């Protein structure tokens, strides 16, 4: 076989493996997003997710505790406790547990927005965060 075709096979193989790996890692997140779609959410828009993340609700926003950049560690505003960065690129544990994501979205939407986030909002934010 020529070197070029061996290289092609290697590249294809690498691509397949990476895709499979990413699918495995994103398992919990996908389940969540599917759930939100089932609740009536439309296409998820990362830009809308980012906008919601940075929006102020009565002086509070997600960035109040989670820092301006998701790459940075945050700090609980009230207690001072450090919060690990939200960006999966920096903190690979983020968005890997359906249970954790559900719990924190419930609590923090209620604390910050004063209400539960809609399925659309959750999907938008999670889609945006997964790309951080």
């Amino acid at each position: 076989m020529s070197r070029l075709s061996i290289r092609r096979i290697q590249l294809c193989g690498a691509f397949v493996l990476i895709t499979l790996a990413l699918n495995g890692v994103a398992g919990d997140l996908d389940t969540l997003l599917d759930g939100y779609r089932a609740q009536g959410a439309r296409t998820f828009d990362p830009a809308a997710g980012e906008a919601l993340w940075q929006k102020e609700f009565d002086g509070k926003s997600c960035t109040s505790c989670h820092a301006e950049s998701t790459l940075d560690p945050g700090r609980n505003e009230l207690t001072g406790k450090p919060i690990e960065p939200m960006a999966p690129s920096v903190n690979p544990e983020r968005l890997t547990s359906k249970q954790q994501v559900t719990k924190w979205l419930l609590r923090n939407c209620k604390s910050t927005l004063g209400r539960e986030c809609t399925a659309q909002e959750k999907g938008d934010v999670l889609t945006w965060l997964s790309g951080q």
Partner: protein
Amino acid sequence: MSKIPQFTRYAVGSALLATALGLGVFGIAAGSRDLGTDNGEQVQREYDEDHSSDDNSSDDRDDRGFKTSSFGGAPVDAVYHEECGSCHVAYPPGLLPSAGWRAIMDGLDDHYGDNAELPVDAKSYLTEFLDKNASDRGDRMKNARLLRDVANAAPLRITGLPYFKGEHDEIPVRMSEDNPEVQSFSRCDACHKDAAKGRFDEDTVAIPGFGRWDD
């Protein structure tokens, strides 16, 4: 004395005085070097070095030589630390009476201004854990000071307990509320690094920006 020339006497006297003053200045300089820095880690390191060879296998003491059932302490519970220690220090259950903990667990949707709701099974597990290890359960003699003069049957704030206030009433505001690294007495772990283990001994206190607390 009269045999020693005056010059020599003055010289020796001056030399002794200079040495004494020099030692004094050095001592003050060396001692004040610790102020303004956080030497909490140093305190912990020195303690660890002194106690590294303690053999504690035969009694109910933790690896620092303190009884695991020490004041305010409780068995370490992974669920409690995960759920109740993710935003603030996992307050030792032995600090509040059972009624206080129950009131807190029943109002998690407005948890001191935040929402801390839990799934039903976690909530009942944790309520039971807190109840079992509360200050009015178990050794009431040991925990009597925590329960002393508590006006409310279900106190919601450890920092509001008369005993707590008494223990902290000599701390200047500049070290606590006005200290940007502390800000509130509810942040036990700012000065008590092992607060989650129930260890609040004065000799383990390290106030950020001020160092040890020496009465």
